[in-house]
């Protein structure tokens, strides 16, 4: 059982949370200033489907579904399940 440290609610058991996957992937930056609907297809494919999937330290999203309902960015080890850090995600008062 993971005890996830929620910045709002404190340490809470994992079954209060939903998992949101890798927090490090970013959509490609599109140039909106040019007015062109230029879409970087390969960049989007990478963003949607490719993952580092590390054996070890992983930065990931969790949502405190049965608590404060905020999205968190959590750093966790995928082998030992050690939790290193947690903070509110961007748009939830974090950055």
């Amino acid at each position: 059982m993971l005890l996830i440290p929620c910045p709002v609610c404190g340490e809470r058991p994992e079954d209060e949370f939903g998992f949101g996957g890798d927090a490090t992937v970013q959509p490609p930056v599109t140039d909106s200033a040019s007015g062109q609907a230029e879409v970087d297809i390969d960049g989007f494919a990478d963003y949607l489907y490719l993952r580092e999937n590390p054996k070890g330290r992983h930065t990931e999203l969790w949502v405190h579904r049965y608590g404060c309902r905020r999205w968190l960015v959590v750093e966790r080890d995928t082998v030992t399940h050690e939790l290193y850090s947690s903070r509110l995600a961007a748009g939830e008062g974090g950055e």
Partner: protein
Amino acid sequence: MVDARYSIAALVRGAITGHRSWPEAWRKPAPKPRYDVVIIGGGGHGLATAYYLAKLHGVTNVAVLEKGWIGGGNTGRNTTIVRSNYFLRDNAFFYEHALKLWEGLSQDLNFNVMFSPRGNIILAHDFGQAEGMTMRYNALRLNGIDGVRLSREEVQRRAPALDFSPNARFPIFGAVDQPRSGVARHDAVAWGYARAADRLGVDIIENCEVTGFDIKDGAVTGVQTSRGDIATGKVGIAVAGHSSEVARMAGLRLPIETHLLQAMVSEPVKPFLDTVVISPSLHVYVSQTDKGEVLMGGALDGYNSYSQRGTWPTVEDVVSSAVGMIPRLKSLRLMRTWGGVMDMSMDGSPIIAKTPVERLYLNGGWCYGGFKATPGSGWVFAHTIANDAPHSLNEAFSLERFRSGRLLSERGAGNYPHYH
């Protein structure tokens, strides 16, 4: 030289000599400096690949490199279910090819893999669910695969231990069944393929971890291992949950996340369940092993994990779901739980394909359905490696599909591997 073939005569000979004359099932060779093909991963898929390379393609200078020991990974950790009830045509034809290989596998390998076609009954708990299942099973039949719909009464005849009481939490409306599906002895599959491949000249090298690739001008030329460097013409990766870790050493990122799946068995009891029963609503599947244990599996733990051991909320969820389906299980004690790491692909279907590195091939993304595919997976992967091109059965299982959009999503859950 003792004839290594298993037969009645060999059994009698063994009995006379006090069973001290049996030859080893496979040799323990030291790695040679060069092979034509190196397979990374001595699980069912890797061993099957080596076997079919030697048997069907005449490529016998092959090494299978295994980090641990044969039968120690997911081949020995799964819930042994073999079926081909897939909806999408590419999946359906591939898994049906695998099921046909299963049907003759014990004879082909001269090793009893104890394939037992006892069906797998998928329960529908209401009319809508039954109609959805009927649609999928009609698709099976259109593809030439067996599938039948069962009424509530027929389910009750096949599996009277299920909860048919009026106050069942999930009342049984009906079911679908694939009569040719069933279970097999999982370790025997690894041992049988290892022994059969060894007899064709394949070197099975245990306790040999790959630590890097030699890549020259975009083509693989060898592997570095904990037992020295090995030169090779071609390399196949078949390492399940560690696909991303091994591919990373060749500079590749994969559309795969590694997740943990648990399974568990109760103490052994007298036979009472002679089929596999599955409830998609409860997300649990239950069968009884030949030893009498009740074998249960359910959902993933739900977040990236390489830990090979699970957490309690999932055990509780699986067991309570199984008891919900078969109330009499509540008096049993749980004997053992274990976990394995799954290579969950982004669309829920496997990847058996060439990679951007020349002559490096990938077999992975099995999600939690790899065991049933074992013979078919080895068969098409051997073809892909031998011909440097996929067979028509695995053409759709490419890496490019994640770029072109030709995804194979049975579930339609989007790019969330923990939902497949």
